[in-house]
């Protein structure tokens, strides 16, 4: 099926009816998630700060999921010369970076009441920072090279290398964390998850996933159109 979509026209026709459905689902889930987040009972220990978790954790999930999408698309772009794969990788970069940045911001807002400091260099948050650096590197590389074909190839390699390095970075940061045990801090192993908190978290997670899918598909369709316009303009210039 994946190779069937390689052809841009077939992809555009296939995704056209999907778009309203995906967007409607995203908005619906977001509203439901928000409603559930604010009707869930307070956590006995953290009181209301637990509600920050409902936006922090999904953002971190999507930051990672988007990079996986980016890496896999890069793989298809590099190995199978899949014409749409480069557009898919490019379209996943910005939303992924924004989700990761959101995870950092909300993580910091969550850390202050819970750990007393705006930022703590613990394993989870540090690896999210490194993931954010991967995104910045990817976008900077693609923005810096003028020639689009060269930029696409270079970005595909970086996307793939990044994907391969993610687990290695995760392991090294965890190992680093054992070295420098910030003893003075409350070793929060993460909130104990009661059922009442699990549902809003999962719904919000699903909502973020659907929103990313909607954004991703829309941006890929835009990219297909943008490239068609550019080729048309170049052809028009040929006659000049």
């Amino acid at each position, binding site marked *: 099926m994946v190779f069937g979509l390689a052809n841009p026209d077939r992809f555009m026709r296939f995704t056209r009816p999907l778009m309203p459905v995906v967007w409607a689902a995203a908005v619906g889930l*977001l509203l439901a998630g*928000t409603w559930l987040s*604010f*009707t869930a*009972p*307070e956590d006995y220990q953290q*009181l*209301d*700060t637990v*509600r*920050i978790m409902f*936006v*922090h954790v999904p*953002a971190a999930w999507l930051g990672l999921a988007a990079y996986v999408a980016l890496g896999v698309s890069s793989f298809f772009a590099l190995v199978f010369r899949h014409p749409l794969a480069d557009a898919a990788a490019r379209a996943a970069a*910005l*939303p992924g970076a*924004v989700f990761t*940045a*959101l995870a950092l*911001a*909300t993580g910091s*807002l*969550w850390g*202050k*009441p819970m750990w007393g400091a705006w930022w703590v260099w613990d394993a989870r948050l540090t690896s999210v920072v490194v993931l954010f650096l991967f995104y910045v590197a990817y976008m900077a590389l693609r923005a810096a090279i003028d020639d689009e074909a060269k930029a696409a190839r270079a970005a595909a390699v970086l996307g793939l290398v990044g994907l391969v390095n993610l687990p290695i970075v995760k392991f090294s940061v965890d190992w680093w964390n054992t070295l420098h045990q910030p003893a003075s801090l409350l070793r929060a192993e993460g909130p104990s998850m009661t059922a009442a908190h699990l549902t809003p978290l999962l719904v919000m997670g699903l909502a973020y996933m659907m*929103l990313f899918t909607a*954004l991703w598909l*829309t*941006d890929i*369709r*835009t990219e297909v*159109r*943008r490239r*068609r*316009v550019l080729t*048309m*303009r170049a052809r028009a210039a040929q006659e000049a």
Partner: protein
Amino acid sequence: MLDLDMGAYAAFVWPAWGISALALAALVVRSVMAARRWKRELDRLEGGK
């Protein structure tokens, strides 16, 4: 029961949700605007040709 009283943590919960809402809204607006712009440009070129 809807609980909008964040008590002492209001200064943390609302900004967290606020930033998230703003950022996601910005992403959506940017994506939809770009889609519309290039769709119009493509129709103009295909129509005009």
